[in-house]
């Protein structure tokens, strides 16, 4: 449909009569949005949840499609087929606003309900019920998360999802939309500012000579006409010796990126690794230089949330010691490199530069953001007060295009050797790699170790007991943890939170990537669960590594000594 952001706003949840939560767990990972969903449900909205896990919202849902991991496209094609077969589609919307509807209509005929039920494991009547409720809704709000994107077929998943949304016309009106829930605070802002390899700020393409000319004028320096590389690509090139220096701001890829043994090797092979951090992370331990970063409360600027709302961040306290904001660090570096153009005096100057070169931000200013409690882009001369709903009259490409996509299973599937699907999850007590939240004693008490969640039936079959120590092995790595039985996961699926550096799920995950976005397949890989001796204490990864349990990594032992 166009842009990589929520088409609607958080407030639209309360305006919808049907809410679809697809492959995400907002009460754990986006608690405020989760709260809005619960409120809407209490006020009478119908709640539909699509998730292999029986999440909190799934337990409250009117319909829960508990599909098999990685069968999103089959499910979605089946739903679209059912909608077309029954004539439930929004014909007016398809005719006026979309193209290629017929292609998709024809294509999804290959996905009759019985076949889809077979692939996904969802009963036919539930599929039909879902299709009916969604298509007949006055306004249906659809939110999706990493359970859609973190697959090899991530892009196709999103296309299939947009086919569903478009065929029912649930976009461009209050209470509707197709709304990705972003992974972190300000990840939207980072994307807006050109942190994607193929974009300049404001999703402007470096292939466009006009865009390049504009930036070259503004910055007084030539701008690259080739897209950059993804972080996965960086690892690859680093291992090939073609990528030699990296500066990382506030990220812990050793814990959060897939196949961490490889990531660590890639980072170690660089000539120069600079990490800008607040705390000592696993990644920072590999750095040549660590620069001390200011926290959110110690710097000024803006954050952009997932509903495209640019909000002011006000400095509350002075940064300790030599800590500073990222813009100040870049500025200091530029100065030493002798590069002109970084002579901002305040963070407001930085923002003013952003508004000059980013059309979506063009009518914003600190003063206007303060007055309006944040503005939602696009905030242009046509819409100086921002936009809460995108695509009201047209799409960026004019008409929205429906795209036929085929179902393909995940890259790696369970077999006799590795009989379980592993999926990675988040817990609301922790954030990201846990480098901040795991320092809080009460949060740490609430989920002290990275537990492996398993269905009690699987547990019984494996001869395990609740909190039994287990080893988890995939083709890429091995770790030890404790198993916790829960009805959240169905038989055949186990889940592991990704916050814990002692039991990093990314020891195990597959770094197979979506060919378009480079997004790794974090949500599905095959593992084996090995019972350990009853009284054994699971060993943290740092110890396993030192015992050369994982031969893929040659450690300089001292790097991983824990205090």
């Amino acid at each position, binding site marked *: 449909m166009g842009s990589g952001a929520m088409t609607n706003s958080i407030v639209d949840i309360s305006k919808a009569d049907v809410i679809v939560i697809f492959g995400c767990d907002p*009460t*754990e990972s986006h*608690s*405020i949005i*989760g*709260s809005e969903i*619960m*409120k809407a449900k*209490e006020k009478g909205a119908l709640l539909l949840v699509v998730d292999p896990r029986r999440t*909190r919202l799934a*337990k*409250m849902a009117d319909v829960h499609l508990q599909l098999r991991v990685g069968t999103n496209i089959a499910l979605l094609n089946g739903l679209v087929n059912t909608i077309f077969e029954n004539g439930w589609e929004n014909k007016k919307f398809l005719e006026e606003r979309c193209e290629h509807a017929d292609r998709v209509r024809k294509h999804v005929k290959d996905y009759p309900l019985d076949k889809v039920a077979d692939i996904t494991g969802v009963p036919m009547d539930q599929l039909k019920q879902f299709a009916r409720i969604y298509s007949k809704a006055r306004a249906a709000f659809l939110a999706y998360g990493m359970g859609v994107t973190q697959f090899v077929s991530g892009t196709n998943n999103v296309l299939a999802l947009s086919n569903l949304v478009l065929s029912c016309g649930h976009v461009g009106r209050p209470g509707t939309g197709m709304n990705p829930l972003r992974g972190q605070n300000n990840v939207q802002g980072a994307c807006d500012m050109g942190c994607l390899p193929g974009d300049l700020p404001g999703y402007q393409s470096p292939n466009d000579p006009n865009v390049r000319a504009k930036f070259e004028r503004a910055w007084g320096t030539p701008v690259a006409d080739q897209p950059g590389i993804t972080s996965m690509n960086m690892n690859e090139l680093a291992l090939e010796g073609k990528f030699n220096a990296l500066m990382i701001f506030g990220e812990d890829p050793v814990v959060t990126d897939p196949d961490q043994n490889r990531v660590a090797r890639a980072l170690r092979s660089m000539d120069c690794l600079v990490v800008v951090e607040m705390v000592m992370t696993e990644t920072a331990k590999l750095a040549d230089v660590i620069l001390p970063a200011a926290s959110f409360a110690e710097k000024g600027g803006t954050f952009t949330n997932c509903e495209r709302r640019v909000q002011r961040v006000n400095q509350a306290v002075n940064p300790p010691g030599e800590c500073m904001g990222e813009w100040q660090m870049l500025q200091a570096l530029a100065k030493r490199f002798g590069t002109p153009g970084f002579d901002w005096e305040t963070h407001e100057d930085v923002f003013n530069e952003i508004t000059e070169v980013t059309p979506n931000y063009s009518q914003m200013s600190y003063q206007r953001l303060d007055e309006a409690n944040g503005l939602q882009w696009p905030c242009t001369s046509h819409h100086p007060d921002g936009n809460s709903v995108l695509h009201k009259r047209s799409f960026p490409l004019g008409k929205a295009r429906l795209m036929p996509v085929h179902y393909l299973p995940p890259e790696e599937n369970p077999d006799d050797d590795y009989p379980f699907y592993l999926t990675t999850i988040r817990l*609301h*007590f922790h954030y990201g790699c846990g480098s901040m939240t795991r320092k809080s*004693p*009460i949060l740490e*008490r*609430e989920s*002290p170790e990275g537990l492996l969640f398993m269905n009690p039936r699987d547990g019984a079959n494996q001869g395990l007991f*609740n*909190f039994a120590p287990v080893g988890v092995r995939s083709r890429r790595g091995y770790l030890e943890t404790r198993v916790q039985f829960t009805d959240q996961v169905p038989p055949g699926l186990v889940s592991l939170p990704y916050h814990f550096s002692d039991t990093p799920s990314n020891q195990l995950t597959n770094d197979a990537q979506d060919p378009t976005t480079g997004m790794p397949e974090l949500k599905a890989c095959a593992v084996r669960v090995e019972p350990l001796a009853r009284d054994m204490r699971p060993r943290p990864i740092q110890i396993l590594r030192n015992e050369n349990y994982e031969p893929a990594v040659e450690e300089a032992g001292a790097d991983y000594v824990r205090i």
Partner: protein
Amino acid sequence: MYVYELERLEHLRNWLTLKNEVLRPIADESGNGHWGVVKHGDVVPFDMDLRPDMSPKGLFFAERETVMKFDGTLFRETLPEQKPQVLFGLKACDLTAIAYQDNHFKDDPYYQARRKNTLLIGIDCQEACENGFCASVDAGPHVDTDIADLVVTPMPHMADDEHGWWVICASPEGQAAIAGLGLAPADPGWENWRDMARRHAEATFPKDTHIINGIQRINGRAVPDEAWERFAHQCISCSGCSMMCPTCSCYATRDVPEAEGVIARERIWDSCLMVGFQKEASGANPAAEAGKRVYRYWYHKFSDDVAARAGRYMCVGCGRCEATCPGMIGVHSIMEKIANA
């Protein structure tokens, strides 16, 4: 009991700043109230309707405080120092909660160090506030004179007319605090007027049948376990209700290393809705199910058994949990659910 007439509350407030640090509800930029210091000579009008989002419990039972330090050979108690302070403009609900906590922490040296140097000035509410139901749980809208040092109550008036106040000296300390202010004694009819104002205020409360029914059903143990488990789906263990609740008093402890081998032991607010609250080192957890924890929370607030020990229901009807709960299971929502369970 001595009662005086007062023209303006700000006059009394300013008088008290002479010898004490005076705290009163103050609104920040977003309109939320908190307890802030008022300086001598401050003329900002007193806002009767403003009630801080956080209850005042943190002023006595600190959200986080050091209880002792160990230097390698000796353990030393670290008591807080408290200059004389006045809390000006406490509503009946918060005062009722302070009275409860005074008893719960009667032998707690940290709480008492702060509490004993504090003068409490209560104010009678004239109408129900949003989410408030103090009248249903015997905690308002008027201040019980047994639990404050001074109580101020508005004189009869029409709508927004300027009006005077009666100052009721509810304790010898309160009496001493206004000595020298030169107030005129009240006319004898004040008690009747106050009583009438209370009845007027009580009449403004919306109906509370769900609260009364809910209390009965909790005590009759008439709510099935499955229903509690269902309500608990909406509890994300954020602990907002416990933090806001003026009577919640649970805490955890942690040891924090300081310089030169010194260890400080802190205590920090805790919440029984957290899954680790009762979890033991072995992993055993008597309250492992979320439904049991949600039940526990409300049982503790509304059970007759607990009330028999504490002298009253633990809930004072302030409604803060309703305002803060992200899962729609604050007191009004849950009592509605219980009544229909």
